[in-house]
Every structure is written in C-alpha cells, then in structure tokens.
C-alpha cells in the first residue's frame, strides 16, 4: 500500500436542492499529482474547498496528513491549512497590495521573527522560480492572467506546503502559457516534494501533469487510474465524450 496524505470517504455536500457531491471516495498518495476532471459545475472546486474547510461537508470522513478534519479545533485546522497550498481558480491575489506584499502577507503573519533580509530573500527566490522576478513592485491589476496564476502559485509556496491544490490552473490561458503552467506544476513537485490535486478540464494539462486521473461525474468518482486506463479504454459515455471533445480528430 502507498502512503495516503489525503483520504476521503463517503463525502456528501449539497446546496439546497442541488446535490453536488454524492458519496465521494478518493485518496491522494504521497508525492503524486492527481488530476481531477469533470464538467463545469460538477463540484470540483467544492471538493477542494471542503478539504480546506472553506465549506463544511454534510457528511463524510476526511483525513489529511493523518488528521481527522472533524476532530480539529480552529487552531489545529489553521496549523493544517499552513501545510496546504491553495491556488485559486481566479488567482485571488490581494488587489490592494503589490506582488511583493502579496507574497509577504502569509509569511509575516504566520512565521514570527523573520528578518527583513530573510523575507526579501524568500520572496525574490520564489518570484525567480516562477519566472517573474520583474513584477515584484507591480500591482495585480497590471498583470496578465497567466502571470497572476503564477504569482498565485508563488504565494502559496512561500509557506513550503506539503500538499498543493491547483484549481483550473490553465483555464482561460493561451496554449503556450498553458505549457508554462504545466511545467511549473511539475517543477513545484520536484522542488518542494509536494503531493498535489490538479483540477482541470484541459486534457493536455491532465496528461502532462498527472500521474493519476479521477473523473467526477454526477457527484462521484466514476473512473480513477492512469490516463490510458481512464480515457483510451473508456466505456462510460460521459467520460468518452469528455475525451472526444478535447481531442477533436
């Protein structure tokens, strides 16, 4: 058995009459990139928001890095959140702050007694590693969509997370920038030894970054496995159509 960093069992979540997650089971293994695929509105974002408890599940068991989420108090939950990097779908950069302040913000508030030099060093090194050293004094409104995504990733990396969640990292970007982002995701795994969940409906991104695929259909994971297993040998019409749509021949 491989070591799981996240275990999800029998997870349910609904909003009013809208049953979004209906019995989700999923494991994230140490060191892997797991790609979660699914139609728009299938509940992919809701799933990872539950994992960091931005939303509360209705039912279900979740264990992250050995901790049962339902047994944590707020302090323990915050401790756990620091080990998780969450790259938001729309980047969620603080738009009243410069890029530098965006990166410093989580750092200075969670790590006490850092010297100015240490902070600057960390910020500059991270901006280098996402390839945007020149943006340090810019405001988020002056950045392109792809740049924002990368700064968003840099901001989550500043606390050295063990687990990364990427919510549609390539959505709305041109194909060339997508390649950059895909490479960044792989590079983060190499450098930071993270285990990641990558949410996407872009199959190229899935194929390049993912070790395993999991397809969310009607509130459950219908197929989990390697790219070939899930797509090339797919029998479920939902999954098949997903594949055909992405690679129109």
């Amino acid at each position, binding site marked *: 058995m491989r070591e799981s960093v996240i275990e999800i069992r029998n997870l349910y979540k609904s909003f009013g009459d809208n049953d979004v997650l209906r019995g989700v089971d999923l494991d994230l293994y140490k060191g892997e990139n797991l790609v979660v695929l699914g139609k728009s509105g299938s509940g992919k974002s809701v799933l990872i928001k539950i994992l*960091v408890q931005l939303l509360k599940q209705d039912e279900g068991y979740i264990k992250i890095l050995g901790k049962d989420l339902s047994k944590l108090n707020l302090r323990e939950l915050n401790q756990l*959140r620091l080990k998780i990097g969450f790259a938001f779908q729309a980047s*969620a950069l603080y738009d*009243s702050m410069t890029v530098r302040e965006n990166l410093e*913000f*989580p750092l200075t*508030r969670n790590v006490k007694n850092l010297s100015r030099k240490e902070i600057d060093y960390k910020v500059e090194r991270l901006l280098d590693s996402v390839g945007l050293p020149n943006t340090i004094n810019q405001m988020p409104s002056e950045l392109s969509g792809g740049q924002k995504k990368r700064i968003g990733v840099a901001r989550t990396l500043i606390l050295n997370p063990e687990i990364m969640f990427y919510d549609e990292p390539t959505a709305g970007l041109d194909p060339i920038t997508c390649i950059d982002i895909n490479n960044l995701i792989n590079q983060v795994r190499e450098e930071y030894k993270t285990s990641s969940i990558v949410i996407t409906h872009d199959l190229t991104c899935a194929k390049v970054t993912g070790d395993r695929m999991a397809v969310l259909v009607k509130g459950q994971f219908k197929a989990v496995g390697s790219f070939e297993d899930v797509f090339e040998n797919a029998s479920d019409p939902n999954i098949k159509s997903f594949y055909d749509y992405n690679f129109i021949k």
Partner: protein
Amino acid sequence: MKDKRPVLSKKLDNFFRGLADAFAFVKRFFQEVWFPPYEFKEILRQCYEIGYRSLPLISLTGFIIGIVFTNQSRPSLAEFGATSWLPALISIAVVRALGPLVTALIAAGKVGSSIGAELGSMKVTEQIDAMEVSAINPFKYLVITRTLATTFMIPVLVMYTDFVALMGSFINVNQNELVSLSTFFVQVFESISFLDIFSSVIKSLVFGFTIGIVGCYKGYNSTKGTEGVGQAANSSVVMSMFLIFIEELLALQIVNAIRYA
C-alpha cells in the same frame, strides 16, 4: 436532511435570518476585537484613508452649512432684535445636531460605500477565502480594522466639521454684525455645555461604528459576482443612513432625559 418548509413565510424567514446573521456579525466583532493580532498598521492606514476620502467634501459642506444656516436664521432673530444671539444659536445647532449628523451621512456615502465595495469585491474574487486558507483571520484583518478606524475617525471628523461650520458662521456674522473672532467664540463656548460635547462624541462613536460595521457586513456577505459588489456598496449606504437617523432619534431622547432630569 434539513426541513425546507418556511416557518412563517419565505420573506419573513429571510428577514429574520438576515437579522440573526447581522447580530452574529456584531457579536463576533465584540468577541474578537480584544485579542491579538491587533493590526495597528492596517488600522492607521484605514484611518488615513477615511480622513483623506471625506475631508474635502466635509470641509465644503460644513462651511456652507455654517454660512447658510446663519443667514437663514437671522431674519427670525432680527424680529425680536436678538441677532446678537446668532453665535449661541448656531453653535448649539451645529454641535448638538448638524455636525454629527452631516458628517456621519457624508461618511456613510463616501466611506461606507467604499468599504462595502472593497470587501464585496474581495469576497467575490475569493481574496477573503485566500486569507482564510493561509490561516489568516480575515475578520480580524478586514472587518475589525475598518470598523475601529471608522469608530475613531468619525468623532475626529465631527469636531472638524463643527469647527469649519462655526468658521463659516463667523464669517457671515462678522460681515453683518461686526463681531470679532474672540467675541464670537466666547459666545460659542458660553452656550455649549459639557453634556453637549460629551453626547456629541458618544453619538459620533456610535455613528462611526455603524458605518464601519454595516459596510463590512454588506461586503463580507455579498454574493452573485460583480453585481453583488454594486449591491453591497449601495445597500451599505442605505442601511447605515437609516440606522444613523434612528440612532440620532434615540440619542435625542436619552440626552434630553439627562438634560432635564
């Protein structure tokens, strides 16, 4: 599963749920305000923003109110040959009612709406969620700082408005009745009592708190994308103006009860 039938009617249910929500929000403020981190830097920055944003408009309004109010009151006093009472009359009107009310209403429009819009857009672009997942308490960093800033700044602005309005009044009195600055202000300070100033400060603190907490509440709970941001800004102005008038009425009752006790 939750029972989804409304208890009274859907509208009333929502109204009471909103009320309960708002009370929970205020309660959370008073629970969390005492504990660190205090975010002094952010509070100062907000104080500066509030002053900076409302100062030009408040200066203009205060000054004009001083002039106009003096000018309009003169004929009635002149009938009794009592124009020498103008400074006393104006100072009581300004310190007791006009200063706090006008300042609070202007701040509700300028500051309340921008707090509502700012927090609203942070909410819909998931910046508030982003703080939460990096273990930063967004309520502390955003709501408490802004609410404290408005609570402290409105009294300061009120004093300023009072002063500017009295200066406006002085100019008018000086031209018509040839009263000197020192005579004018001696009269002013003779006519306003400690209770007037004290109640004006307390009232301004309450107005300031109202403007801040309403703006934050509306922004923090805004939904529905960019449309929600506009709504948050708009409804925070309407709501805080409404509350300010109610509070003004209550304050009047309380102060009169003390004054004539």
